């Protein structure tokens, strides 16, 4: 079933003619916005996946073991430094405290290539929508660490008129790290807490009420 015959008739050559206009002169392609809604196409195609199993079996449990081991040992954090905690996060990346010992030293500036968003600093209401959009643009599986008192609950600026009291009002948070700013060792303890959390992720959780062996 070719792609073109799904469209109303004449739609494709309308696009072709528009495109030629575009390069010939300056025709605004504004109305081409409602081209094929991409998410409809994506959802209709269903790929087989490990989550389709109802009960955990030998395939999913080995996959759990391999993937949770791989995911927890090498997370790419997202350089999302806001305030003073960012300087502590920065100095935890260098020689003295060396985040590389845990495998987390690859700090990625774009949300596309990272798994862990460390919110290091105060989030105010002008930064809220930006933070939410960056969180949405990260690819699954993704986690959030609220580093420092400001990200956890507004910190010393809790009664500011412009301060969001805690990042969990905007994004779901996995690990909270107290401190203002938390020492790099505290950040590493937060990362190890997150590692425990990732290690018991399962593709197919055992149904409730069933006994588990381990």
């Amino acid at each position, binding site marked *: 079933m070719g792609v073109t015959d799904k469209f109303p008739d004449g739609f494709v050559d309308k696009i072709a003619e528009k495109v030629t206009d575009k390069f010939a002169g300056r025709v605004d392609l504004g109305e081409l916005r409602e081209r094929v809604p991409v998410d409809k196409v994506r959802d209709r195609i269903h790929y087989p996946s490990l989550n389709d199993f109802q009960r955990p079996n030998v395939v999913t449990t080995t996959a759990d073991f391999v993937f949770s081991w791989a995911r927890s040992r090498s997370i790419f954090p997202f350089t999302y430094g806001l305030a003073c905690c960012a300087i502590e996060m920065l100095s935890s990346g260098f020689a003295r405290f060396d985040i590389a010992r845990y495998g987390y030293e690859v700090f990625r500036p774009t949300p596309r290539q990272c798994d862990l968003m460390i919110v290091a600093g105060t989030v105010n*209401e*002008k930064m*809220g929508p930006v933070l939410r959009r960056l969180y949405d643009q990260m690819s699954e599986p993704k986690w959030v660490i609220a580093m420092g008192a400001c990200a956890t609950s507004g910190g010393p600026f809790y009664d500011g*008129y*412009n301060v*969001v009291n805690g990042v969990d*009002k*905007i994004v779901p948070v996995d690990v909270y790290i107290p401190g203002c700013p938390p020492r790099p060792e505290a950040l590493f303890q937060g990362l190890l807490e997150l590692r425990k959390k990732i290690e018991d992720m399962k593709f197919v959780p055992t149904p409730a009420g069933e006994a588990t062996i381990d």
Partner: protein
Amino acid sequence: MALPRIGSADMTIDQVAARLKGEIAELDDVRIQVPDTVVCRVDPATLKDVAHRVRDIEGCGYEMLNFIAAVDRGDKLEAVYHLYSFVSNSYLELHVGLPRGKAEVDTVSDVWPAADWHEREAWDMMGIKFLGHPDLRRILLRDDFVGHPLRKDYADLVENHPYA
């Protein structure tokens, strides 16, 4: 052109104050805040003219604007222009009293380009409108923030906060 060497006109702070009082009549209640600041009040209407003349007095011209502090004095708002002079190495504070309801004053961003952002911040925080300012927008708060938070009568409403 190079700036004058700092403190080259070695005048004491009293000579500077006397010079200012003599040169510019509109400055009233000129007093000295030891050790290095001349404080005076200026009428909002004559501010632009005073600003031009204060900067261009040869001998102790105030070329640099440090900051503009917007203070809510209860009955009236006040803009404090804090200036620095390289030649006489002294500070000058111009206090401009503004009525609370219609707090408007001429901009000085053409006299000192540094005033551009300070005025935008005074507008954003205290609601003092600067007439003739090239681009008077909010500088620190969200564009859809309601009210001026540093005023004493600012009511912090819940609707004003998307993530309350």
